């Protein structure tokens, strides 16, 4: 029986060849073999147009065009071939301000370096099992950033649909 990923096309945008090799090996292990690599954001955009990938893995820090700029292009540019494509941003910059910048650019998932198989697979599983709604407003287009309810939030429900998640015992 096939594993479900065989027909997917992936794009890896990463300026470090070692990291590209590791990511390719991990994607291969789940059955994704149609993989294109780009060594920076601009090349990634060209590949995006030509190959129409189903999944994008991108580094954050790259010269010329970094992962944030690349993600903003994918989500917002009128010429973007697929503004909804899942983007997993892989970064060693895990400080809060970097994470917030990635989230606000419109990434789907964030994966911290050093990477492991379990961590990458968990991010892909999130995309498969719990795809997120997209939000379009004046200042943002991308996956809904309100993934987790605020712990300890005792204020009023902010949206009518929040009530769907309330369990009454």
């Amino acid at each position, binding site marked *: 029986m096939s594993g479900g990923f065989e027909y997917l096309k992936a794009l890896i945008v990463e300026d470090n060849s070692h990291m590209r090799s590791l990511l390719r090996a991990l994607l291969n*292990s789940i059955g994704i073999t149609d993989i294109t690599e780009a060594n920076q954001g601009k090349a990634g955009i060209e590949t995006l147009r030509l190959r129409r990938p189903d999944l994008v893995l991108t580094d954050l820090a790259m010269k010329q065009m970094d992962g944030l700029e690349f993600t903003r292009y994918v989500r917002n540019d009128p010429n973007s071939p697929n503004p909804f494509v899942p983007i997993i941003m892989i970064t060693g910059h895990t400080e809060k301000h970097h994470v917030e910048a990635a989230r606000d650019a419109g990434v789907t998932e964030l994966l911290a370096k050093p990477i492991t198989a379990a961590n990458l697979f968990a991010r892909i599983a999130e995309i498969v099992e719990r795809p997120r709604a997209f939000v379009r407003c004046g200042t943002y287009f991308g996956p809904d950033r309100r993934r987790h309810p605020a712990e300890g939030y005792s204020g009023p429900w902010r949206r009518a649909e929040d009530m769907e998640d309330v369990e009454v015992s």
Partner: protein
Amino acid sequence: MARQTSDTDAELIEPEDYPQMVSKRDSLRCMQTLQSDRVVLKAKTAMASYTPMLRDAILEYVEALEEAGADLTQIFAISHEIRNFAANAGMGTAGRVAENLCRYMDEMERVKKPVDPAIVTLHVAAIARAARAEEDDAKMGDVVSGELNALVKRRLNDAGVR
């Protein structure tokens, strides 16, 4: 169907209303693949095959780090590469020390304060020693890593970083 949210002008586009990476029909098989012990083992084995190549790469980065002198931009960039790969190369201690140095430099830049060259030098020496260490020296590397971590915490605290 896209809908307006109740408290903003934002439009919400539900997952059913845009193309998904995998169809609902394939999602179960995909999840089984991702959770399969056989697949995870295959992935770990594939990653392990890169360990020798990554070790060589880390040692090259260490040489470049030592040659960077007082060029803080270079030191930060190279340390970041070491931090990103060292664990995959089986050089966890070097990775932790590099991470500590990156965090220190990143936070000091964020609060617009100068980095202490002595702290940078200490970390560079510790990264080099940990990367080149034989197994017997690994415990010593862990001690040094812990001490440098405590030092950076104190310095960042002094600089007002919370």
